[in-house]
């Protein structure tokens, strides 16, 4: 049977991808960002997951205002890294796992989570930056990837509670897949940041640290944070943090925190990183 063996949360700042692609990770500005990922690079290398289930958001790349799915599950065999306006990132093609992805799609729909099934999409930095942080710069990604794109661009995104409950349904789905397989669930985006208008540059370390604590120890409380609190206290783009709750729901009720990293800034954003293990 398939099993969830870890949870990996990280910010997915595009400038982090640029720093990796351009070999700048040792520069004084970037070194404190990347040093916090060294432990988890080794952790995931030893864990050898078969599949990474990556919860992320598309940033007006594969989806525009023509079509705004709240939850879109990638069931394709492969996904190309997208050109987001400055050329595609030089990273490997992302290979999917259609059999497991379709199994999850069927399971969660019958569990009353009415997701959108996607057979053709490009993936942007929201998905590829976390893969680079976890796996470095290999010629091919070391595991299959199932993308789950969550709308956090058009207000309102799904509630934190919906995300947490959906994560629980994903856990049920993965654990009912009748083949041995080790799955790591990624929750990406955040932490506090605002990219737009006169208040751009907002960072709130107290909010972020409290969110990390709640996510680990009291996910129901984290899931109860209303949208206006994210918008006001974590910045308009800090609302991406609801995606971490999908990951948390998938890990089960109790988890062990294996690793935490927090740094300000990467470009406009507070960088947060957590590694969790289901108990």
């Amino acid at each position, binding site marked *: 049977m398939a099993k969830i063996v870890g949870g990996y949360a990280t910010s997915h700042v595009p*400038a982090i991808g640029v720093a990796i692609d351009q070999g700048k990770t040792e520069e004084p500005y970037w070194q404190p960002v990347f040093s916090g990922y060294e432990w988890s690079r080794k952790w995931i290398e030893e864990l050898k997951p078969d599949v990474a289930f990556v919860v992320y958001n598309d940033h007006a790349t594969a989806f525009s*205002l023509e079509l705004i799915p709240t939850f879109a599950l990638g069931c394709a065999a492969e996904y190309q890294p997208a050109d987001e306006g400055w050329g595609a990132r030089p990273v490997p093609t992302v290979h999917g796992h259609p059999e497991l992805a379709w199994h999850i799609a069927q399971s969660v729909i019958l569990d009353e989570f009415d997701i959108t099934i996607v057979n053709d999409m490009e993936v942007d930095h929201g998905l590829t930056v976390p893969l680079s942080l976890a796996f470095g710069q290999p010629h091919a990604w070391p595991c299959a990837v199932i993308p789950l794109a969550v709308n956090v661009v058009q*207000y309102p995104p799904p509630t934190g509670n919906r995300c947490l409950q959906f994560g629980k349904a994903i856990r049920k789905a993965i654990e009912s897949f009748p083949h041995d397989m080790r799955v790591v669930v990624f929750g990406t985006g955040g932490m506090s940041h605002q990219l737009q*208008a006169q208040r751009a540059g*907002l960072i709130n370390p107290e909010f972020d640290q409290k969110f990390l604590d709640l996510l680990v120890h009291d996910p129901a409380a984290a899931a109860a944070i209303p949208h206006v609190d994210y918008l006001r206290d974590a910045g308009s783009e800090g609302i991406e943090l609801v995606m971490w709750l999908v990951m948390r729901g998938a890990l089960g009720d109790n988890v062990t925190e294996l690793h935490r990293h927090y740094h300000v*800034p990467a*470009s406009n954003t507070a960088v947060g990183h957590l590694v969790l293990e289901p108990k």
Partner: protein
Amino acid sequence: MSGNDYHDIPGTFVFDAEQSRQGYHLNMFCMSLRQAKNREAFLADEAAYLDRYPMSAEQRQAVLSRDWNEMLRLGGNIYYTSKLAATDGITFQDLAAIMTGMDRDAYRQMMVAGGRPIEGNRTKGDWDNG
């Protein structure tokens, strides 16, 4: 749902239904700039390229004059308008600096020093009293 509970946040446009409806063509214009051939066509003749998108005269002017906050006020979304910035060769951090009215180095310095604090930036009242 009060729906308006976020209107008290200063210096922020929440991309809600009203903004999205108003900004549809403006954002779809920006979306077209994802493709290199469209970026070239736009830069070669901006006015002619904009004729393809039925946006308002105000929106069109905001694009031509690169008034980034005005684009947001008129329904633009930052993930879309940043594609126009990328077409101009402006990084996300420099775009953020421009929108705050700070110069590039001062903004970068603010971020390195920990960013814009939440204290004094929580409500419109904070800004009025500041």
